[in-house]
């Protein structure tokens, strides 16, 4: 009896999260096996016949293998912008937290403004055109970094506040220069919050739809989220192909998470007792 009393809440939670997460996923997987006609019903039913392979083939080869280009682009975009985000946000967070100057208030205001004020599309494009980065992946990476930076800085700054100042001072007395203090002493200690940043920002950048739509025109620049529009329109949608596409672009991040799950969780808990 005490077993039931102790664990019933946990069991309910697991059941609820199973329903919330697994049922939609099952719906996606079932739909990828259906043909156009059955998928248009959009019901939770067993597929008649196996159309998975023909669906995958059509999704991958559509628009001259656009999905492959999109995967390459999205991978570059996500990896590059998250790398830059982590380095820059950690640096800014470190300086902002350690060095008190009269500009701190202004800088903090600017960071908050970056979070609160929605970015305007047309002036951004105008600026990008001026420096020759419009419609290029480099420019898109910089935009993702700029949009993600305020949130990451706030995360880092709060975490750096928990690292004792004595560590920096000890390093400086031992002869470390500013870069050494940051890269060899502070950055390794930031691993837990870095993991959080990597996970949150990768998901945001990989799933970004509107920004690539406006800032990255052209087929050669397509990202995975934009390929969804190959099968969906205002008046006609091929649900079997749409869901196959969704499944294909959901699986890589899912695999990454499954494989690195151990490291992510280990990183979070290891950091928690350090410092």
């Amino acid at each position, binding site marked *: 009896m005490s077993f039931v009393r102790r664990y019933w809440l946990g069991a309910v939670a697991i059941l609820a999260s199973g329903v919330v997460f697994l049922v939609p996923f099952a719906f996606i997987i079932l739909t990828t096996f259906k043909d156009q006609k059955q998928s248009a019903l959009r019901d939770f039913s067993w597929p008649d016949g196996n159309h998975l392979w023909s669906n995958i083939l059509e999704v991958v080869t559509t*628009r001259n293998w656009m999905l492959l280009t999109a995967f390459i682009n999205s991978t570059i975009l996500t990896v*590059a912008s998250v*790398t830059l985000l982590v380095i820059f946000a950690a640096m800014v967070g470190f300086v902002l937290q350690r060095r008190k100057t009269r500009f701190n208030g202004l800088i903090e205001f600017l960071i908050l403004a970056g979070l609160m004020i929605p970015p305007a599309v047309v002036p951004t494009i105008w600026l990008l055109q001026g420096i020759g980065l419009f419609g290029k992946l480099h420019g898109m990476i910089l935009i993702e970094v700029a949009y993600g930076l305020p949130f990451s800085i706030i995360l880092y700054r709060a975490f750096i506040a928990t690292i004792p100042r004595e560590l920096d001072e000890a390093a400086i007395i031992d002869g470390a220069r500013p870069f050494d203090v940051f890269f060899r002493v502070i950055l390794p200690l930031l691993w837990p919050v870095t993991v959080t940043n990597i996970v949150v920002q990768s998901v945001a950048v990989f799933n970004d739809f509107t920004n690539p739509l406006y800032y990255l*025109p052209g087929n050669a620049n397509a990202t995975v989220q934009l390929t969804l529009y190959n099968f969906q329109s205002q008046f006609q*949608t091929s649900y079997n192909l749409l869901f196959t596409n969704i499944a294909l672009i959901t699986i890589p991040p899912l695999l990454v998470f499954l494989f690195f799950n151990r490291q992510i969780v280990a990183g979070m808990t290891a950091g928690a007792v350090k410092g």
Partner: protein
Amino acid sequence: MTKTSRRIALACLSAGLMAMTALTGVAHAQSINLTYLIPSGADGVAVAEELVKSFEAANPDINIDIETRPGGSEGDNLVKTRLATSSMADIFRYNSGSLFQAINPAQFLVDLTNEPWQADVQASFKQVVTAPDGTVRGAPMGAAMGGGIYYNKAIYEELGLSVPKTWAEFMANNEKIKEAGKVAVIQTYGDTWTSQLFVLADYYNVSAKDPSFASRYTAGEAKFASDAAALRGFEKLQETHDAGLFNEDFGAATYDDGLRMVASGEGAHYPMLTFATTAIAASYPDMLDNVGFFAQPGDEADLNGLTVWMPDGLYIPNTTSNLDAAKKFVAFVASVEGCEAQTRAGGASGPYLVNGCTLPDDVPPAVSDMLPYFAEGGQNGPALEFLSPIKGPALEQITVEVGSGIRPAADGAALYDEDVRKQAQQLGLPGW
């Protein structure tokens, strides 16, 4: 780790980042490259690909890349943004009529008035891609559409019904269908835009009674609530709801459900634009012969005709990289070969607006039912949104209310007049 190896690692990391970003961009040698922006969707892409293929076969030195964009209001934003930032594709497809006026054609688009192929484009289309300064800036892309009512031929045969010419006949048919235990009228308010059809497709009947309605409406003199002919559209919607003719799930059903129901005989009538024929052909090819079409019936049989929606236009922005090549492509689309390529790829969904274009003999019944309205002696006229720049943005919400029985017809019409007034004031029209 030593200092130098750390430096090297950092350098490698940044070099790697640069190298990854440099992977993009493929160079084509010595041919002219154009881009062509179209709304997404499998059917539209197939037509564009066929057009480009036929065009490239005739012009081997020109290479056209198709880009897609979302439809709806997201697409409107994108088109306006790309025009405003001079980053528009070399040729693009976009709505004609009031949405065409909203992208400021005189400022952004190339003047196509004096192109030789304009001689073969029908005047009714030219009128909807003419900028305020009187210049024609587009070419027809796609077939004309009718707004009316799809019906299931199997149900009509089974119950021995005939195509109604007047509203009274239509309602009588509906009663018989309802008595036979079937759904008489399909409504799909899950996609709210589908709710407007009874009102919008009634416009031919309005103009037949009151030919000056559009100009008086633009001038702010005629109103939906006070003009008896115009009010009929709202009243028809209310009548069908009050008679209990709708499918049970009319509030949640979607456009796709509506097509399936009318094709498979789960319902008898579905008010819709005829572009749906292509969608039925794609999703339910074996039931396509079951679906017929008629114009929305009016109160008098001899005044009945079809309300016509003009197809999209093809436009060239001022910023095009190669104007001559872009004009060549537009000329190709507006030629007889262009129509044939469109029919090959997407099937025929209605008559084309280029003289000399013909439809194949084996068109689906929903298309052949539409042709008499365009033949000599047939009656058709453009929808109100092509005759007047004002279309209130809230019409679909209002028609959902009227169609769901929440708001009476007269009340809905008055509310719509108010919605229209706001838009006319935004456009700065005189008389409001």
